[in-house]
């Protein structure tokens, strides 16, 4: 079989996953796209393993490892997404922007003012 077929398929799948990661809003959909990218890599590994007729079957072994790691990753990733969802009420990636440049500055300016207001109220 021509090696180009699996290789091109893997490349296209990878780029599809890449698009999903960059374009999707829901964090769980982002995770799905990551799975797609991982599977594209797996396909590459298997195809090249078969082509090279590797004595150790490194490609297949690595594929198995990647699958296991992907399973672990999806578990942890979902736990984090759930935590974020519970804390913020949303799982949208582009709404989690606490690290943007002006946000902490505002928070810093606001914090003492609020503290003063509280102190005044208490007084």
């Amino acid at each position, binding site marked *: 079989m021509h090696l180009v077929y699996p290789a091109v398929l893997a490349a296209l799948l990878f780029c599809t996953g*890449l698009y999903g*990661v*960059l*374009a999707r809003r829901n964090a769980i959909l982002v995770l799905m796209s990551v799975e797609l990218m991982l599977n594209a890599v797996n396909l590459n590994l298997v195809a090249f393993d078969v082509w090279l007729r590797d004595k150790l079957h490194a490609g297949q072994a690595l594929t198995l490892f990647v699958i296991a790691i992907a399973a672990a990753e999806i578990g942890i990733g979902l736990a984090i997404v759930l935590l974020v969802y519970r804390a913020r009420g949303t799982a949208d*990636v*582009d709404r*989690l*922007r*606490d*690290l*943007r*440049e002006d*946000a902490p500055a505002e928070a810093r300016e606001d914090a003492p003012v609020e503290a003063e207001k509280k102190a005044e109220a208490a007084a």
Partner: protein
Amino acid sequence: MTTTTAAVLVPLLPFLGAVATLLTGRRAPGFVRPLAVLPTLAAAALAVLVACRQGGGQPLDAARRLTPTGSVPIDLALHLDGFAVLVAVLVTVVASCVQLYSTAYLREDPRYPSYAALVSLFTAAMLLVVYSGDLMVLLVGWEVMGVCSYFLVGHYWETEAARSASLKAFLVTKLGDVPFLFGLFLLASDAGTFRITGVLHTVATGSLSHPTLTALLLLAGVAGKSAQFPLHTWLPDAMAGPTPVSALIHAATMVAAGVYFTARLLPVFTASTAALLVLAVMAAVTMLGSALAALAQDDIKRVLAYSTVGQLGYMTGALAVGDRGAAVFHLLTHGAFKALLFLGAGVVIHAAGTNSLAAMARMRGLARRVPDACWTMTVALLALAAIPPFSGFFSKEAVLGAAEHAARGEAPGIPGAAGWTVLLAGLVTALLTAAYCARLWLMCFCGKDPDAAQHGRESAAMTGVLWVLLIPTIALGLAAWQLPDWFDGRSLAPTLPTSLLSTGCALAGGLVVYGAWRRTQALAARVPLGAVAADPEAAPAVSEEEAIATHLAAYGSIAGAQDPADPGRLLLGPLHRHAATGFHLDALYAALFVRPVGAAARLVRFLDREVVETYVRGAGTAPGWLGAAVRRAQTGNVQTYLSVLFAGSVVLAVAAVLVASGA
């Protein structure tokens, strides 16, 4: 104990006392007084012992080299000759008196421990200078004294006058010390050693390469330390320090160091005629100028300060005519009576509550209130005015005799012009000295107006010291027939012509002032004047500090007062205004040096602030702007970051492939 061991202990004991006082002063205040007084007293006893053992015989030399120091070796060396041991006795005795006096004078001062430690350190440094046989070790003591004088003059640092005076003392003496250091290097490079014996040997063999230059460089340091024209301006201002410190600086240590050093290395100076002439002119100008200035001062301590400058002029005059015996003789007697005068002045200032002669002249019974100070100071003033038979007469006669000797060309290697200069200036100064002594005595102890507030009785420590110092003031003159054995062997006994001349001058000066005083006496009643310290019961140091701080406000000047009853004003006439300010030397220095330096400093500050800092600020601002621009990219959206990341990697990968395939 060998003589060498005793001699080593003499400077070491006050030094250890100073260290111990500094270490324990805060935690154990009870030990401060014993630690201040006892080491100094022990050093005095040891100094007397060393003097007796040495006895004016052959110079005693001992040296130890701790470590090799390169081409010119530096040794811890002792050089004990008649000059050294006698000056050491003077230093230790005066220092002991000052320490005893200070225990009472600064009895309530919170900074007494550090004060006592610095006085001990000062004494130790002076003793190091006196005993040292190595010029580098001598320089160490010399510089330590400079630092100690800075701290001690600035003891009342709460007052502006003391702060500026301490800085001035430090800077002016250091100004002299820089050429002094180069002079030492020149000497050492010619002699190949810093040992004084080696240097003197080199001078004796005539192998000094630049005798005039070396002598003049050394002279700058001597003028700075011994307050000779034109570097004398720090000394009158140093009166802002406590009175015992003034006594110590003026009588025994600091100012004596310059004269003593010159006496030690006199062959270096006599090797150059030009240097001797410069020395003579310097001495003459110093004598005359200071005597005139002393006549116009209002602060009792400033009168004494200018008199010190004048008497030091006598000593340098004696050195200029090549007679170091006379110079050191005058140094010894002057040390005794000047210490007495200063310590007595401290008592008077406390009793009167002011340091202004104009105010004292309006106080009746000051003499009755402090009889000890009155009697001892009277004797000391007579000694200062060189009235026989007190000690000052004999030593001043020795100086004038030496000058006359040189003027008649009988001294080998001494230019006659130097002799004439010193002789004439000395005679005129004798007249002026007697005049300001008489003025001081009349204004201080013969006040007419009603009594001022009664101050507490002076403590025994203060008055007792005065009586102790009275003994050498009266009797030291008789040593004129003994001292030649200790010194160079030249006769120090008075000769008839100069004795008659100078005594006549002194009597004339005193009588003129008395006459003037009788005339102005009527004015004194009409013009009330005087500000008296507010705390009659406080410690003497407090009264003095207040008096120094208020003098400028009360009289319009730190030095003079607008007192028509002042006989000095009548006698000096239009000259009084100039004399009161020390002939405007301070103003001249301010115009010549202080203001250009200040302008240069302002220029440097301007360059630093406006030019250099612009670059610094620019270097900070440009990255700041860059950061602000880059900060805008931080949207917080992870997907944007990832997009850019991947776009970048794609570009890099494509570039790498293109390069690899050679496209």
